[in-house]
């Protein structure tokens, strides 16, 4: 069987989902960015599907924006059963009151059990207002989500102090249960490109946002984050390879470049970038040691890192005793491949 025949067979078996009847269900408030459905929305759909299955309910999505109708297709492919679209110029860019008004009307009619948002700028602004307006409970930034089937209550593990431990929270009575999830926490669901559906278009007249955007904040510089406070550090040793690639890797990860004493001696980093007890102590979420051998002075200065990845050509390099993940290979090569894998 070759691929084209398979395509044909699958095409014949395409089901066009008639939009599932409303009422209850697990809803996702979708976000779009750059003409595509935001990755966090897809992750939320994945979570919604798991919850809906345990509940025996359908998964719906609310998609608000300007010129977003065609994006409904992506949501169906991700596994949404019914998409409600509000497509109106007044809905872009995001404004709280216009979005909130439409969602409240929609949810008052539909009565969702659970509503999911991404924990994004929009989610931080919108989810609590929705919960407040509808008398629902809100758990933000859940990382592990499960269902207590007897009470149809979601239990979400919320990271405390940035993930030192987790408090499991639930909203046993109030409805809807609103949740936000951090981007990158959950896996994307399988995208079935043969799954199609017809979204319901909502007839809306969005209100005016109360907050006006005046324009870019020219000359505004946020306070500098010192190396000791950086949440991602990419540290180089003498064997790190192409420095420019490392810079790009750091940028991609939203991190800062640092180095060990050897790197400083070799002129690869400045004195205030040296991770060493005699230099700067760091405690990032992620520490990437690229071509660093490791020694007491360096290791003690990054011992508080939450997660350490070490890349070094020598399998016996002392750094590997301190790393969570060890890659024995040419650091320069790994950085190159990593740029591709992440990019």
């Amino acid at each position, binding site marked *: 069987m070759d691929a084209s025949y398979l395509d044909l067979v699958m095409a014949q078996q395409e089901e066009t989902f008639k939009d599932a009847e409303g009422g209850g269900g697990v809803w996702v408030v979708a976000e779009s960015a750059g003409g595509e459905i935001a990755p966090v929305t897809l992750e939320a759909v994945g979570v919604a599907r798991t919850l809906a299955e345990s509940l025996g309910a359908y998964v719906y999505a609310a998609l608000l924006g300007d010129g977003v109708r065609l994006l409904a297709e992506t949501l169906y492919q991700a596994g949404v059963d019914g998409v409600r679209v509000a497509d109106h110029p007044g809905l872009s860019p995001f404004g709280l009151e216009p979005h909130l008004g439409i969602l409240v009307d929609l949810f008052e009619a539909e009565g969702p059990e659970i509503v999911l948002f991404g924990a994004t700028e929009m989610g931080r602004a919108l989810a609590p207002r929705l919960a407040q307006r509808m008398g629902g409970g809100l758990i933000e930034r859940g990382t592990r989500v499960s269902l207590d089937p007897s009470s149809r209550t979601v239990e979400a593990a919320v990271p405390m102090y940035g993930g030192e431990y987790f408090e499991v929270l639930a909203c046993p009575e109030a409805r809807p249960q609103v949740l936000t999830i951090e981007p990158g926490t959950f896996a994307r669901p399988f995208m079935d490109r043969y799954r199609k559906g017809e979204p319901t278009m909502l007839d809306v007249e969005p209100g005016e946002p109360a907050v006006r955007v005046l324009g870019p904040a020219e000359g505004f510089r946020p306070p500098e984050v010192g190396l000791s406070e950086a949440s991602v550090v990419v540290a180089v040793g003498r064997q790190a390879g192409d420095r420019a690639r490392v810079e790009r890797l750091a940028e991609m990860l939203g991190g800062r470049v640092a180095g060990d004493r050897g790197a400083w001696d070799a002129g690869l980093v400045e004195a205030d970038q040296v991770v060493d*007890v005699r*230099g700067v102590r760091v405690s990032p979420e992620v520490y990437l040691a690229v071509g660093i051998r490791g020694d007491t*002075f360096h290791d003690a200065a990054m011992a508080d890192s939450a997660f350490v990845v070490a890349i070094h050509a020598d399998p016996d390099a002392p750094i590997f005793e301190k790393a969570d993940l060890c890659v024995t290979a040419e650091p320069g090569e790994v950085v190159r491949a990593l740029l591709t894998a992440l990019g």
Partner: protein
Amino acid sequence: MDFTFSREAKALRRMVRAFVEKEVAPIAAEIDREHRVPLGVMRKLGKTGLLGVCFPQEYGGMGAGEVGYCILMEELGRVCTSTATNVGAHIGIGAMAIHVDGTEEQKLRYLAPLARGEQFAAFGLTESNAGSDAANISTRAVRDGDEWVVNGGKVYITNGGYADVVTLIAVTDPALGARGGVTAFIVESDWPGFEVAREEDKMGIRGTSTAELVFDDLRVPHENVLGKVGEGFVTFMKALDMGRLTLGAACLGGAQAALDWSVAWARTREQFGTQLAQKQSIQWMIADLATEVEALRSLVYRVAWMVDTGQPFTELAAMCKLYGSEVASRAVDMAVQIHGGLGYSRDYPIERAFRDARIAEIFEGTNEIQRIVIASRIFREHGVRISP
């Protein structure tokens, strides 16, 4: 007996610690390397009101008493002995002399700006021939109408290079000597005849100004006599007593820091397969020092409480200085040993702490003098007078 710090004291410590960690810690190594006074930090400290921590609020101070002052010195001593020394000379002896014996008018005129950190103070006692033998000073002040004309000089004056106000002591009647022949004055450093001759290049506390002052027909108005004419030593001894207690507090901070650094290193460093902390020799060094630090802490804060409740404390303050300086020296010596080569490296703060600690056994009255003060008081209770 309630040995807990009050909520006010805890709040003060929290505030000071936040300041010290943010403002002092980042510059501590730099001011030592560059041999300069942290004037910016001193000004910021002034703005918070901490440079008047123990002075009454009606003179621009905080009114937190000696306990508050000891907390400030302890927290500074933990991080930067140089800064602690600048502050100690300013508050503890320079301004303190005006606090103990100044007239109302002198306090409003001089103490208030010092308490608010708008001006800085120094204390001018020591001369080249008068160190421990303070009575041997020869700087001369001669009455001329309603002014006094001062000639002479002082050496090793902390803050001398930048102080705006100096409380100094001069001989006003050579025939009477220390009892009745010496007077304290408040002088301003921008008056004609006041000169900063040179700065000492020191082993440690290199973030301080230790200056030689020269007075060449320096004219001081009579209303700037501090205390009574001829009773300058009384005023100065009162000021020194207060200063000694708080120097003990700074030494407490330094010793605690040396202990903390050593414990941290002992946890981190592994040799022969185990951490240093697992080795008895290290454990005993730590245990001994920790015991001494606790004893010093109890002593310092008890004496501070006694000052705040109006009880006599002279020999106890001397004990604070004596014991504090010796514990601090033992502490930094131990810290260097525990850190090994790293403790000797200029890239790490331990060697600076080692160099900084040594002066505490010498200035503000050498430890020999402190011993004489203590012994003197003890024997006096039994009717025996000791002559130094």
